């Protein structure tokens, strides 16, 4: 079986995570926020590691995935 990107709810404490994400950006300029987001993407991508999943994640983010 090929690896599949998880697209069903999977975050523990989703509301908490969302609040933490916004809090991390709090008070940052647009440029600094953009830079943080870019770093965050790279950190998360490294955690995933699997190239196939990453390709699926890129497609999902581009809203190109078939549901």
């Amino acid at each position, binding site marked *: 079986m090929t690896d599949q990107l998880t697209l069903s709810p999977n975050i523990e404490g989703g509301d908490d995570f969302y609040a933490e994400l916004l809090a991390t950006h709090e008070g940052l300029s647009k440029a600094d926020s*953009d*830079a943080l987001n*870019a*770093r965050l*993407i*790279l*950190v998360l991508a*490294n955690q995933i590691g699997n190239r196939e999943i990453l390709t699926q994640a890129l497609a999902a983010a581009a809203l190109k995935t078939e549901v």
Partner: protein
Amino acid sequence: MNKIFEVPMYPYERHADQDASAPVRHKVIVIGAGPIGLGAAIDLAQQGIEVVVLDDNDKVSFGSRAICFAKRPLEILDRLGCGQPMVDKGVQWNVGKVFFDEREVYEFNLLDEEGHKRPAFINLQQYYFEEYMVHRVRQLQAEGAPIEIRGRNKVSAIGTHPDHVTIEIDTPEGSYNLEADWMIACDGAASPTRSMLGLDFVGRVFEDNFLIADVIMEADFPTERWFWFDPPFNKGQSALLHKQPDGVWRIDLQLGWDIDKEREKRPENVIPRLKAMLGDDVEFELEWVSIYTFQCRRMEQFRHGRVLFAGDAAHQVSPFGARGANSGLQDTDNLCWKLKLVMEGKAPESLLDSYDAERIHGADENILNSSRSTDFITPKSETSRLFRDAVLDLSEQFEFARPLVNSGRLSVPCTYDGSHLNSADALAGPEKTRPGSSCPDAPLGDEFLLPKLADRFTLLTIDADAPDIIEESGITVERLALSVKDDKTLALKERYLGDLDSGVYLIRPDQHVAARRPSYDENQFRAAIRRVTGQE
């Protein structure tokens, strides 16, 4: 004092061909006496094929130009009999440092794999490189080999025919005509041969300018490659510092697109830039300054009947990764043995189409890598810069981001996966020696493996039986019988057998693997010999 690149190395001399009543026919004419043209000519001549090199100039490369030569080309140069002076003179390095803004973000070590005769890289000015090749040509001439270089012989017209090429040549004493059975065009990125034949050269233009300055200085900088992204002395751009022999340092500064090239090249504009980088108290002398732009592109085909293109004439890459001269030498390495077999009638002309297929595969790999490096070094959109800077910021603190930093993916040998010359892999052995790979070197006591595989087809047996000589369809294959015991470091076993106890490899004259099996099989290896010579 005259620099080596200011002295004519092959001055114009009138040749009897210029006074002949009809155009003289030569076996092979090579256009261009740069590293690739000389490499092709030496390769052919040392195998007894008559070759004439024509060059519109009479000197070696003006300025250092290509400075970074990788292991595989050095191994090829060993086969051509001129690797040793290059390595003796060249500067070896393996530490690189990456700077971002005002900080050193990390340091890497190329940590060369043990058990190879040649290092991963040397730095050497192209003018020395060409000088040593010209010495090799002179040495071959002294031994009676059929090779000559004609300086200030500029090709002005080319006519192509099914079985030969006609060439008109301008010299200081007027023009004359020659004919050749085959022609190899190694006349650089701006190849006049390509233009004269009206051939395409398409690809991607990178809108950027880079200033190269070679400075002579007694400086304390270590023998390392230093690369800066967005440094304070060249805001928003990149910079590179690299050491060459004779206390010459290569400095490469990105300048951006909208600049006045002539103005930027003037010493009064170059010197303040260098002082900002090196510090006010460092004394230096400018040896050579140039501004370059680049494109990543290639010809659709490298073979056009009896005209074969090699090196920058066939494909052009950005300088990041040292993939220009390094890949050009792999072109002629691939071409010359095939051309020899075709000329001797031992292989069909269609064998030369595999030169196209294999080296286009190589060129595409180089274009891909050097385009990616260029996109990282000179981001062309806001988002591209955002991610680039994110990688650099992370790399300072976290190891995971360092492999994403791309200041040039340094040239490694091309593996001809999928080539029609390969036989199916029949050995469950190491990936790095699969059919299509260039043979990795291995120590054999005080000697090395690669010099034993030169210029001919070899059947390498490791703890396996096989005939000492195989004759098949006009091709002679000689056996090289080895045992894992011949290498106490076990590199030979690790690189060629892996977990297996024995192996048999059919190796091409350019030291690439054509076929491999755990033991000798008469029918299979005979078929492999026919396949690798285009006869099946």
